[in-house]
């Protein structure tokens, strides 16, 4: 069997359905590894990976670091807040300095969309995009799709609705690309101000009605309102947002069908989702998403490390 069609993971846009399936099959193997008494394999023992986080992150960063360590790679961490970036160093200089210490792979989160693509054209190491501004977050999309596949089987023809702040969400865009490549039907739902017009061109259904969308979907992937990226007001108040677009238990009970509830985190409880929905047993797979994140990231690192 052949490997991946790419040597970087810059976005879901740049990979194929076969790549996604190969990552999922490999993730199945790593999920088994993570359930063993000793959760570590020596595959990447001669690989050094730099985690460059120019933007805050808890989950993604820990998940990557665990994945790297469980593959026995050497890991160096970097965060922009306490580095020479503050002294005026350019991205290319920073990364080239790190690479001259013989680093093979770079996992990067950056606030500027396209930063990983730019980097991939100028440096020799393999790059994994861990989120670039409001553009893409490919590993999150892969672990979301992997978690859905675990619940529903093949995603061909399945209905998935993404709720919330679509405009500022890199998770939404990567999810759309990934789910469409796997043959699922995708809808986005939120206030009109938070749904960009170009989504219609992606072949995605657009809805402004939460109840109608919940009735339609098999999976509800609920996103956070990204206040830190909103420099103007997109809706009058959080309370109004949660009244009209928040998902609560009463709404789910009225629908009366089983919907898989997902959230990429961090959750703003009481805003986009209430606590009783976020913790709803049998529906919510939010913590499973986090668990699968490590296995999926191990699969991505393992497959990319093998490419020339």
């Amino acid at each position, binding site marked *: 069997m052949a*490997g991946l069609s790419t040597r970087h993971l810059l976005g879901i846009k740049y990979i194929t359905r076969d790549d996604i399936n190969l990552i999922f099959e*490999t993730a199945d*193997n790593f999920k088994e590894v993570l359930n063993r008494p000793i959760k*570590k*394999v020596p*595959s990447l023992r001669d690989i050094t990976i730099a985690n460059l986080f120019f933007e805050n992150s808890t989950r993604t960063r820990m998940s990557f670091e665990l994945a790297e360590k469980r593959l026995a790679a050497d890991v160096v961490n970097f965060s922009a807040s306490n580095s020479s970036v503050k002294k005026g160093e350019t991205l290319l200089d920073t990364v080239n300095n790190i690479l001259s210490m013989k680093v093979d792979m770079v996992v990067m989160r950056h606030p500027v969309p396209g930063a990983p693509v730019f980097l991939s054209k100028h440096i020799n190491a393999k790059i994994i995009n861990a989120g670039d501004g409001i553009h893409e977050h490919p590993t999150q999309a892969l672990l979301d799709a992997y978690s859905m596949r675990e619940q529903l089987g093949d995603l061909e023809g399945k209905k998935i609705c993404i709720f919330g702040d679509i405009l500022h969400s890199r998770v939404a865009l990567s999810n759309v690309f990934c789910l469409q490549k796997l043959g699922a039907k995708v809808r986005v739902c939120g206030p009109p101000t938070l749904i960009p017009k170009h989504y219609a061109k992606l072949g995605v259904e657009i809805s402004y009605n939460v109840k109608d969308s919940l009735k339609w979907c098999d999976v509800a992937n609920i996103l956070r309102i990204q206040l830190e990226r909103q420099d103007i007001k997109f809706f009058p108040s959080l309370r109004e947002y949660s009244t009209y677009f928040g998902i609560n238990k009463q709404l789910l009970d009225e629908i009366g069908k089983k919907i898989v509830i997902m959230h990429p985190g961090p959750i703003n409880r009481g805003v986009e989702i209430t606590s009783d929905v976020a913790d709803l047993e049998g529906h919510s797979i939010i913590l499973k998403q986090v668990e699968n994140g490590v296995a999926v990231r191990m699969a991505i690192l393992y497959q990319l*490390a093998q490419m020339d």
Partner: protein
Amino acid sequence: MKKESRTVLSHPRFELTIDRLCHQLLENHHDFSNACLISIQPRGTLFAERIYQRLAELTDLSGVSKGKLDVTFYRDDFRKGKAPLIPNKNEMNFLIEDKDVILIDDVLYTGRTIRAALTALQHYGRPKSVELLVLVDRRFNRHLPIQPDYVGLTIDSVDEAHIKVDWAETQEEDKILLYSRKEDI
């Protein structure tokens, strides 16, 4: 180009070989009370299944654990081969602490797969002993100091040659083929 291959073992010697190996195992393990059978994925599993079926006819194997070990993540040619390494399914739902492990593979060639398997086994506990059972031993092609305990057939061949084991379950019949070059397959 004509495929150059030669059958070195087929019916009825093939079944007799498996029979003999099972009797050798019986001699050393008596009632198999402390033994477990672990095959190496992917090609050792069909062979191990045959051994298990024949052994079950000869003795009670109800308490014996069976596992399938995938060694892909432990191989020493990661990033060194031409094709990417794709893992197989690993099925090990027991620990091997203080067990007598019988490791099973079809062809023993350089010994590198067995080296990887021994590392992988460490993750499931500290076995009392590990024995190696192979259908074919290419004894002059070893890269590492690894020797089998039970051998179906010993073949002395040059490095370029390739051994292929066909199973009735996946191919038409049980047989062992010797190709003069790997490209001929």
